[in-house]
């Protein structure tokens, strides 16, 4: 491009200032990248939730159980195709820092309910044939360097004692954001071994509706069916359930948006000021360009291009830094399994940087465009 020398050379007029401005973009976009990753990690359940799945929990709280007898009654409600259930086990593997979710699942119904988790058939059969069998996510296997056949002791916290499991299957996620840090085992094993209090109780149901557009009605009908019983229910779409679960950690979305907005507004002021100074300093040069025959629009574009170039360089640096930092995956060892800067977020961040670049450069660019050549050439 024949004008590249004009654009690039301006950046080297005040090298330190340029580096600092690029640096401020880099820091802002680095922060944007990290905040987006944290937000994504908290909302991972929301993003991957099935549109046709509802979650039925105890109306009092998710930690209160529901009777297993509800399964048949749920299946009788019009619009419900499938029902499965699971329990939160809450055990500790070796150390409390090694957190991951363990679920006692209903073997017959859990796998078809979550087709996004893929397990080879032979491994699933091996799991079904072993009372102490477990199926674990690929990320978990990688994290603890497990392999098929390993015996894993888990110390119960809700359910007392040490529970030994044999890894019989490893599941993968169909999508990159699918959670592959779970640990599944037989509900029957839990029921058989646990004390009588827990017999016939499960943690929550997941049901599949025949028509997702009918979800609201089905959810209402489920809750009405079990109203005024000792185990009243609260039914939500899986997405809403995941969102309310994420909100338990506080309004992360609002927090992240607030921080992001403040950072970008500050960046806008810093860059706008820098570009205004840069234009003021070379009023004469811009006047010469106009005298030589460059149009007002060219001068406007030149200043905007400089501003966008700074934004692009800083944005790329910051996002690259965020990507590098998140390559290692979840730094919390299980609390945020989906710790990943997606290409879509990267593109969003880069676009945002360019928009800030344009907005910040607009006023200085307009003042450069409207520069009076005669007056500008008189200035010393």
């Amino acid at each position, binding site marked *: 491009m*024949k004008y590249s020398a*004009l654009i690039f*050379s301006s950046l*080297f007029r005040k090298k330190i200032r340029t580096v600092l401005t690029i640096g401020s973009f880099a820091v802002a976009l680095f922060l944007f990248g990290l905040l987006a990753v944290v937000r994504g990690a908290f909302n991972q359940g929301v993003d991957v939730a099935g549109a046709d799945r509802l979650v039925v929990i105890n109306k009092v709280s998710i930690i209160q159980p529901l009777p297993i007898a509800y399964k048949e009654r749920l299946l009788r409600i019009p619009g419900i195709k499938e029902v499965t259930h699971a329990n939160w086990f809450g055990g500790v593997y070796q150390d409390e820092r090694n957190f991951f979710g363990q679920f006692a699942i209903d073997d017959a119904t859990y796998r078809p309910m979550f087709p996004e988790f893929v397990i080879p058939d032979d491994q699933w059969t091996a799991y079904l044939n072993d009372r102490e069998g477990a199926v674990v996510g690929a990320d978990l296997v990688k994290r603890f360097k497990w392999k098929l056949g390993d015996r894993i002791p888990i110390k119960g916290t809700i359910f007392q004692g040490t529970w030994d499991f044999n890894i019989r299957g490893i599941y993968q996620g169909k999508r990159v954001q699918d959670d592959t840090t779970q640990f599944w085992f037989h509900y029957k094993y839990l029921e058989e071994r646990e004390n009588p209090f827990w017999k016939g109780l499960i943690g929550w149901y997941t049901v599949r509706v025949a028509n997702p557009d009918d979800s609201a009605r089905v959810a209402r009908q489920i809750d009405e069916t079990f109203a005024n019983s000792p185990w009243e229910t609260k039914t939500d779409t899986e997405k809403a359930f995941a969102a309310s679960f994420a909100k338990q950690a506080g309004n992360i979305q609002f927090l992240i948006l607030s921080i992001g907005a403040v950072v970008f507004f500050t960046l806008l002021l810093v860059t706008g000021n820098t570009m205004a100074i840069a234009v003021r300093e070379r009023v004469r040069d811009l006047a010469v360009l106009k*005298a030589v*025959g460059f149009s007002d629009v060219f001068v406007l574009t030149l200043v905007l291009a400089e501003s966008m170039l700074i934004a692009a360089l800083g944005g790329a640096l910051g996002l690259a830094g965020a990507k590098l930092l998140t390559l290692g995956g979840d730094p919390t060892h299980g609390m945020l399994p989906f710790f990943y800067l997606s290409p879509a977020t990267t593109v969003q961040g880069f676009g945002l940087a360019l928009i800030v670049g344009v907005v910040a450069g607009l006023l200085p660019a307009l003042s450069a465009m409207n520069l009076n050549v*005669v007056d500008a050439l008189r200035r010393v």
Partner: protein
Amino acid sequence: MVRVDGGGNGSSLVRVRGLDKKYRRGSEDIHVLQGLNLDVDAGDFVAFMGPSGSGKTTMLNLLGGLDLPTAGTITVAGDEITHLSGSKLTQWRARHVGFVFQMYNLIPVLTAFQNVELPLLLTKLSKAERRKHVEIAMEVVGLKDRMHHYPRQLSGGQEQRVGIARAIVADPTFLLCDEPTGDLDRKSADEIMDLIDRLVREHGKTVLLVTHDPVAAERAHVVLHLNKGVLFEGQAAGDKAGAR
């Protein structure tokens, strides 16, 4: 043939009629140029002298399409420029005018080559063609070996030569030189005037030069004097007083 009486024929390269320029400063009207007439033929070398504030630079700005007159017309190579829109005037400048400034006005972050290349960026020339044109212009001003130096690495005289190369590289219709030796020592000033002289004699350029320097003005074919907004052939009363 240079005339200031408005009697030139239609073949003049530059034809100015009844040129007026007024500025308003506060409540006061300042009449900088008053009904100027001027005819300059192609290949003429005209020097304009006059005391500070006499309107020399204003006249040059008007002739170069950087400013618009309050009244009157300027016609250059058959184009009347006084009624052109801002963007048309910009295009016209690119095609017809080469400016040489007192303070050189080179862009400090560009090399001499890049500074000289600037007017060519507005043309459809290829990169190779632009390079060739720049090399020729730099050779004409005797600085081909300094093409990749930055302005800060050049002396004042050399900077002004680069300024002249920038002014001639696109082969404009005429050169407007505003005190091109005003910031130089005698020796450098003489070298610059030699160069301008050569551009007129050997390359047939038309040059309109504003200067305070009588030695520089002597090189011109015709010296015109501007005083209180009025153009004279020969020395004006104010200039004589200044000379004494």
